[in-house]
């Protein structure tokens, strides 16, 4: 778990550096080596690592717009994921998806950039597992801001009435872009929402990966044993802006400081030291993680850009007759007719 956490943290720090290259001094979102928006998850590592430690490749995970730490812990191919973030041809989605839309069917990982919209597909994956009599489970990750969405509540209800093996993991980092939690909900503990559906709800109050691991173990065990869904809420912290380039003018300095003080990685290090791991052991893990990240980034940057023609592939599984995906093709035909 510790190794995954430091891998995720270092990965985010390196992506930040790469992202900002070419965007300085004046930040222009359309410049630099990494395209589009980038939502980093530094401060969220405890939930990805603690939950996914219980998951197998045949268990499904759906992630929201801030997916990297979850993807790393779920075992998504780091090199191809990085190539995708750099928009390269050999990326997970051949450069079509981008960082909010990572798909790795080998480990049953998928994303959606639309808030809470990973919840219904997670329910569907659980449904499939139940129909096929396997003991696979599904986990939907979402932010505390996302619990206001109908899609979450509808999914929770559906999972409850059908007793499906789903765990909803709410990553509570106190903020939804500029909206502090207390302004969007009167319920302090989002796991309480589970009560209204007679579903098990639980909250881990500190960003402690070991506590998350224990709570997630119970929740996932319950799901695997056919005992239905759980809402598991985890307190985390957002160490960076909502997206890269977010000036965070709305956020009090104390809050940023507090987020940096409560560091789940340092907490994990203390825990491991208490259990007999020495500085050298930790350093060795860190080095291994850093190497893996560097390797993935170097590999990704060496990958070819997609060929523009590829933009027209993959819309359907087969080529469709009479589907004018390319207006100029259609035109060529029309001109031909005239002559």
């Amino acid at each position, binding site marked *: 778990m510790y190794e995954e956490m430091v891998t995720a943290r270092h990965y985010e720090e390196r992506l930040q550096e790469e992202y900002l290259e070419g965007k300085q001094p004046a930040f222009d979102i359309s410049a630099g080596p990494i395209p589009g928006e980038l939502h980093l998850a530094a401060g969220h590592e405890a939930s990805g690592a603690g939950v996914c430690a219980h998951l197998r490749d045949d268990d499904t995970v759906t992630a929201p717009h801030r997916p990297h730490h979850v993807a790393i812990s779920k075992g998504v191919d780091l090199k191809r994921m990085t190539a995708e973030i750099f928009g390269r041809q050999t990326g997970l989605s051949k450069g079509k998806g981008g960082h*909010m839309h990572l798909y790795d069917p080998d480990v049953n990982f998928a994303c959606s950039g*639309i*808030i809470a919209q990973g919840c219904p597909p997670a329910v569907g994956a659980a449904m499939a597992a139940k129909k096929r009599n396997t003991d696979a489970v599904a986990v939907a990750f979402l932010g505390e801001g996302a619990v206001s969405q*109908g899609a979450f509540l509808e999914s929770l209800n559906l999972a409850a009435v059908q007793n499906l093996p789903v765990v909803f993991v709410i990553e509570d980092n106190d903020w939804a872009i500029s909206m502090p939690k207390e302004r969007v909900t009167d319920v302090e503990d989002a796991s309480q929402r589970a009560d209204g559906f007679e579903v098990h709800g639980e909250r881990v109050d500190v960003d402690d990966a070991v506590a998350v691991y224990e709570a997630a173990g119970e929740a996932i065990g319950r799901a695997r044993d056919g005992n239905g869904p759980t809402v598991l809420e985890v307190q985390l912290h957002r160490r960076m802006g909502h997206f890269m380039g977010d000036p965070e003018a709305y956020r009090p300095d104390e809050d940023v400081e507090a987020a940096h003080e409560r560091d789940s990685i340092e907490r994990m290090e203390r825990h491991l030291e208490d259990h007999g791991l020495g500085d050298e052991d930790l350093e060795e893990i860190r080095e291994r993680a850093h190497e893996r990240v560097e390797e993935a980034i170097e590999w990704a940057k060496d990958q070819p850009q997609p060929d523009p023609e590829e933009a027209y592939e993959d819309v359907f599984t087969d080529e469709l007759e009479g589907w004018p995906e390319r207006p100029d093709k259609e035109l060529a035909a029309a001109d031909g007719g005239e002559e």
Partner: protein
Amino acid sequence: MAQADVPDPETIDRELTMSRGMVEAIAHELRESEDVFVMGEDVADYGGIFDSTQGLLEDFGHDRIMDVPISETGFIGAGVGAAMQGMRPIVELMFADFFGVAMDQIYNNMAKNAYMSGGSVSVPMVFMTAVGGTYNDAAQHSQTLYGTFAHLPGMKVVVPSTAYDAKGLMHAAIRDDDPVVYMFHKRLMGLAWMPAPDGPKTGVPEEDYEIEFGEADVKREGDDVTIVTLGLHVHRALEAAADLAEDGIDAEVIDLRTLVPLDTETVLESVRKTGKLVVVDEDYHSYGVSGELVARATEGALDELEAVRRVTMPDVPIPYARPLENEVLPDAGDVEAAVRSIHE
């Protein structure tokens, strides 16, 4: 055509970005009437992700500039309900791409309540939303979707391309008794982190003024070919027209400004003059704005029409990587090529 009683933007010294033009109109209407309020995600403390409400919180406070939970069905529908009580909400959906989670409120309530009530209720709300790509934000954050909203009856649809138009259209939208969908292109707003092309920053009068819906603006006059477009692509078309002019091809550029109502007459007049029509649209190719314009031109000026071309987003979800997005997004070069292909 620009109205006679409002000043020409070129004669005004004070230039604003498009977002400032919009915000100025909203602020004016907030001062005029207590019934006006703004509601959306990150509209207050953040000032709108695309600066569409920048600075309003300071003057009007959280009661009138309301941040809401991420619950589009809830707050867009609440906008409908408040509007049916005679208030004039301005409700923002952060990206047009997110309409799906709230489409029932938009389409079955906002758009249809006036009709279904036999005209006994109205829904005077402004539903504003950001559209468009050009910065590699991929398939869920880059769509334009003009056609989707214009296709559904019951909503007026407004798409400004300059600060001057943005302000005048916003005044008109807030004062309108019907629901108005106000779609602004991110690339035109004048954001520090997403440079705008030359053009959207224009002279804007201090005072309030309305740009009437259903009046297209001829942004460049020309005799050889008619280019009809809207939003960001007005500027791309003007760029293409400038290049074409060097080769003696004189393009007329029409900015539709509103899709519902649509100023068919201005388009037909121009097509009757030039005989050639190019429609440019950042929205998908099939079943959308470009097809509608071609159909209207065919119905209204078949005899004069010699050639037609469409420059659009092909029917593919918008890809992320730069070479792929560049391939599908129409640019000035594509407009120029389309014009040349029908101009001999």
